């Protein structure tokens, strides 16, 4: 239980810090870089190294490569849904999560489950 409380607090602080930095920066396209900052990764990998060692964190970061490519695809899809299909931000970002899941697990499968 304590582990999950620590995870929650560390994750909340790191994500909020990156998000506030993104709020401060202009132009918006540059601030968008911080919306894809590895904030959850920094918190999670830090805990993973402490708890399970470097080897475990290395496996997680290799899988993260597939997740990051899926994130780039996801962002492009969201952009098109907002500009061309004129969807509002909430439905566009939530519906596109399906694309992220398909792309992430698809890329992982392509890499033989070792990504």
């Amino acid at each position, binding site marked *: 239980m304590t582990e999950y409380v620590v995870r929650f607090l560390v994750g909340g602080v790191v994500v909020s810090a990156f998000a506030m930095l993104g709020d401060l*920066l202009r132009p*918006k396209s540059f601030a*968008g870089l911080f919306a894809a900052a590895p904030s959850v990764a920094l918190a999670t990998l830090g805990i993973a190294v402490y708890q399970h060692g470097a080897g475990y964190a290395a496996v997680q970061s290799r899988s993260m490569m597939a997740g990051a490519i899926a994130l780039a695809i996801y962002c492009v899809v969201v952009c098109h849904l907002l500009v061309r299909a004129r969807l509002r931000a909430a439905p566009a970002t939530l519906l596109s999560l399906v694309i992220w899941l398909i792309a992430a697990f698809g890329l992982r499968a392509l890499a033989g489950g070792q990504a």
Partner: protein
Amino acid sequence: MTMSIGFSPSSLREGRWYEYLTRFGLGGAATVFTGFVSSLYGASVGGLFLALPAIFCASATLIEKHEIRRKQEADLAGERRGQEAAALEAGGAALGALGMLAFAIMFSFLVERSVTAAFAGASLAWLVVSVAAWSLRCKMRSVARRRTSEG
């Protein structure tokens, strides 16, 4: 035409306390969720969720909401402007995702040699690749705009 990067401290005042609380909660929940998936299905599946766009969903929605609010205060309909602002954020995030890929590559390469070097090197790789990709896109757009105006 060059895009200059700047700080706008006034944008922090646009946010409501519950919006910051929501982000904190989402960030915490995403980190707990990733840990939970890793313990249930292993590090390989859990690693995918290190790049889960949960935070992006919240920030794009907030940006749209702020833009609509700003336009409504000036008695203008701001829905389209809000969508455009969120789309700009998504475009930037796509480039940030390339930086995230660089982060993951650098981290996996260094972590078994030195943990400190892995965190420092991966963070630097994220920053350099993200900013370089953003600058390149700005330059390409500026060249395309110049060609259109000349042609």
